[in-house]
């Protein structure tokens, strides 16, 4: 979903680039080139908005740029880890996103086998820890959301879905698949409202995995880290996790989280939006 800020940035920059196409006649022989450049600019802005994790590392690799987030720490041009050198040894720290949807109240699906998954969770975790032969950390940044606001949001969402459902059922040619889809969504929202009524509290959370590898050179440490990251991706498959290696600008943010926890709900919410 696109937030308001993204819409503002896309619309304004898009309109400015569009002017280049609208006024192509003013550039004479260069008109077509101006139009092509403007289209490329719009495409680049879209890529920057949705896939900046590809653009930024490509940019730093091309310019051979390293970033120093703090004293004694370096983010290499590949933008996939933070390196620290201590006594001639290099420690590379990498990050992976790891959202366990089953443990988050904001889950978007009603899972009938939740009890089974809860029962399996602790044992799976212990087996996982026993099989990982290198250091790693699993972090969960969390806060309790305002119950009243959360409930009102859900009730509003349910009302809107019910309105859409009644519109579809009263239409001249109601589509059964669409009706089923709306019913399913209403059930999901209702299940979440029921969970609130049973005393559960809504939680906002951000989960990530951190792992550290060591080597006698930057390259050795980074290669070892890549191996560890791949292994973690494999072993964490036993959970319902969405795992992606963090590359680019979010690396510095997660590095900062090692030393402080965002202290307000607003700060954390802003980061959730950035992560998605």
């Amino acid at each position: 979903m696109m937030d308001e800020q993204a819409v503002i940035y896309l619309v304004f920059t898009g309109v400015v680039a569009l002017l280049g196409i609208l006024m192509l006649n003013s550039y004479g022989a260069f008109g077509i080139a101006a139009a092509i450049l403007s289209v490329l600019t719009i495409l680049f802005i879209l890529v920057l908005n949705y896939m900046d994790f590809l653009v930024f590392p490509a940019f730093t690799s091309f310019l051979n740029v390293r970033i120093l987030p703090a004293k004694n720490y370096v983010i290499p041009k590949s933008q996939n880890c933070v390196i620290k050198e201590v006594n001639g040894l290099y420690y590379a720290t990498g990050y992976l996103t790891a959202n366990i949807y089953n443990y988050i109240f904001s889950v978007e699906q009603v899972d009938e086998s939740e009890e089974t998954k809860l029962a399996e969770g602790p044992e799976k975790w212990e087996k996982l820890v026993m099989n990982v032969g290198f250091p790693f950390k699993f972090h969960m940044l969390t806060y309790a959301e305002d119950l009243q606001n959360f409930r009102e949001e859900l009730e509003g969402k349910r009302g809107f879905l019910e309105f859409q459902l009644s519109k579809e059922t009263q239409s001249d040619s109601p589509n059964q698949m669409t009706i089923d889809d709306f019913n399913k969504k209403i059930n999901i929202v209702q299940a979440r409202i029921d969970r609130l009524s049973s005393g559960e509290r809504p939680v906002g959370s951000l989960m990530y995995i951190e792992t550290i590898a060591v080597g006698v050179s930057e390259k050795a440490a980074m290669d070892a880290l890549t191996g560890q990251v791949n292994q973690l991706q494999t072993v964490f498959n036993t959970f319902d996790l969405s795992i992606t290696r963090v590359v680019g600008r979010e690396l510095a943010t997660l590095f900062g989280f090692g030393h402080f926890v965002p202290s307000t709900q607003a700060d954390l919410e802003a980061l959730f939006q950035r992560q998605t």
Partner: protein
Amino acid sequence: MLLFVSFVGAALVMILVSANLPIPGFAKFIILIVGLVLDILAAATRFYSNLFIPFYKMKNGTVVLSEEDPFLLSPSGEAIISRRGESVYATAFLKIPVYRSATEMSAEEKVDFARLFSRIITLSKTPFKLSTQLYTINKDDYIGRISDKLSEVEELYQKDSAGKSAPQATIDRERGQITMWHNLLESISKAQSHALLNYASVTAVGGSEDEAISLASQQADELSAGIGSILGATPTLISGQEILLIVQPEYTIPFSTVSEQIRQKTMEEGL
């Protein structure tokens, strides 16, 4: 946002000027390119506004975001301090003891245990971080502790064996203990050793270090009480060297163990 408005405004002016100025087409085209570059920079301010000035000041391909230590240990050793602008952030860490293993639980107990975990997550309105860390045990310390234990038992054994007052059963038990510590000492030198640490961290902001530390300790106490009531075991405040184990990579993988790992790897590659 100000940076975005400035870049978008500049891009708009450049493009309008390029289209309307009575200059040759080529010159217009060049101004258009400048305008489009400014437009891209405007789009980049959404995520990268904090990097614009460091990139501008870049030297030898190195962009410096900060030249300060990422944190400082507080004088009391009970929190770490980091500065962001005028604000001081103090972060305190709580060790969460977990004494139960899933292998010893029934299916029902496992569900209950997972639900306890969910309750901890919903504990505080203030954001906090719940972490589990698998780290490499510093073998030097470990070996030292086992050697001490071994020496202690050996001394006791010699004393009891020399004197004739100790019962035979005690002497046999001490001999058994000596064998146990010997075996342990041998096995830890061969295998890699890891340990698991569960902890929670909270951060408080203050105008001064003292204020931030005091607020962080207060929040940590509140969280500790909550976690304690749920798990039935009281979390303890992590301090001093133990904090470094959490926040410094070289403490997570100690130097002595690393040297051993590298030596083993080199031998394996050699074979």
